[in-house]
């Protein structure tokens, strides 16, 4: 079975399951929108948002919602030990990793498609100022976050305190990604936007993605071997 066929088979299975239960989409969306709403009461005073607050809150919401999505995605695999059956099949382990990553990534992008306009509305953030650049930052930042998160969530699938360990492991590693995302987005949302700076942070995110993806593809097989 080809690499991309395996990726598609696994990602499609996750999407079919999610389309039926909608558990992840609803819980993650509800959580992300709640986070944005709560922050809006603190950081929007008399209709004016604090400088750079929108970018920070957008990325904090993405990180929190992404952690929730990662945990639940692998909880499904754990419940009936289905990941074991997938690992027993004669497919390349990196293809299994990418398949799971694609499912998580698509879910997170759907959440972002909803919360980004909500942030724009509540924090008066100009999300239409450089839409392609903003989408680029969101997609690359989310890819890096999901790449690390998918690896850790798979590694922790048998750990008893996996719900606690996942954010403890994930956030320190992904801090550079979140900082790059926040600074790049803030450069777009600023009163005096600096798109060159945003592009520089985008390039940084692409670099992080390449590093994280390479490392994750390299170690997924060995760490799932036990």
């Amino acid at each position, binding site marked *: 079975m080809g690499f991309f066929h395996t990726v598609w088979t696994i990602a499609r*299975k996750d999407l*079919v399951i999610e389309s039926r239960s909608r558990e992840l989409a609803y819980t993650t969306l509800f959580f992300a929108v709640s986070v944005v709403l709560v922050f809006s009461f603190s950081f929007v005073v008399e209709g004016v948002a604090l400088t750079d607050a929108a970018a920070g809150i957008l990325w904090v919401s993405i990180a929190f919602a992404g952690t929730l999505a990662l945990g639940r995605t692998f909880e499904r695999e754990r419940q009936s*030990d*289905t990941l*074991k*059956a997938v690992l027993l*099949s*004669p497919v390349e382990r990196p293809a299994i990793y990418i398949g799971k990553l694609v499912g998580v990534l698509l879910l997170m992008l759907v959440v972002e498609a909803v919360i980004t306009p909500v942030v724009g509305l509540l924090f008066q953030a100009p999300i239409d100022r450089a839409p392609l650049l903003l989408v680029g930052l969101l997609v690359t930042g989310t890819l890096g976050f999901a790449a690390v998160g998918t690896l850790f969530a798979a590694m922790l699938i048998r750990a008893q305190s996996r719900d606690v360990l996942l954010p403890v492991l994930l956030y320190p590693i992904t801090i550079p990604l979140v900082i790059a995302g926040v600074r790049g987005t803030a450069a777009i949302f600023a009163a005096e936007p600096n798109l060159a700076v945003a592009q520089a942070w985008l390039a940084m995110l692409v670099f992080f993605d390449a590093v994280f993806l390479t490392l994750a593809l390299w170690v997924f097989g060995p760490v799932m071997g036990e």
Partner: protein
Amino acid sequence: MVRVDGPSASPGVRHRVSVQFDTVYVDNVSRHYGRRRALAHVTLQAQQGEIFGLFGPNGAGKSTLISILSTLLRPSGGGVRYGAHTVADTGDALRGQIGVLGHDLCLYGDLTARENLRFFGRLYGLDRLEARVTDALARARLSDRADDRTGSFSRGLRQRLAFERALLHDPRLVLLDEPFTGLDDDSAQVLIERLRTLRAAGHIVVMATHDFDTAEAVVNRSLCVDRGRTWPVADGVGTLRERYRRTLAECV
């Protein structure tokens, strides 16, 4: 890696490479979890056309041995050879020749019975997938529930489906951990017949179970496992359960 040519390779699996083997050798295998010893210097040989029974108390090491045979777990010492091959030299291809039914049934509750089989069939790269799925559903006697989500199935129905899922790719080595769990008498008899068919077709079956009465009807050789060590179940008079107890009393 070895190219598929011979009659013993699963005929419907479209992998570019696969492995052939008629015997599985477990050579002085040990496995430790930290300081706890799960298996200690286990040696056994299972051959084609044979059903090998593993019996022992809970936590004796049966499931660990099955996990090692399935390639999911690496031994801490010793090794396993599948014919002339090892996990190291055959990689992913070897797993295409192994079917595993574990404690957990490895079925997605939000997918239907048919979708579960289709999904795993695709991962194994099977040809004639729809025909194989239909046959497997018929053998599991679940044709009328094929399009129901498995989350709504009883344990017994899921057990039947999981057994057919493990055999969907016609593996050379079949590893069964408590295959009779949750099965009613009829289903257990069907499973016994299915195991006899597998034996007659030259598969290697290794089965861990506590169900002596049912297993006695099919196993060729039996091994007693306790605290990570193994002893052949004594031959002679008496039922399998009696001989197992005698072995435990004498050896352990």
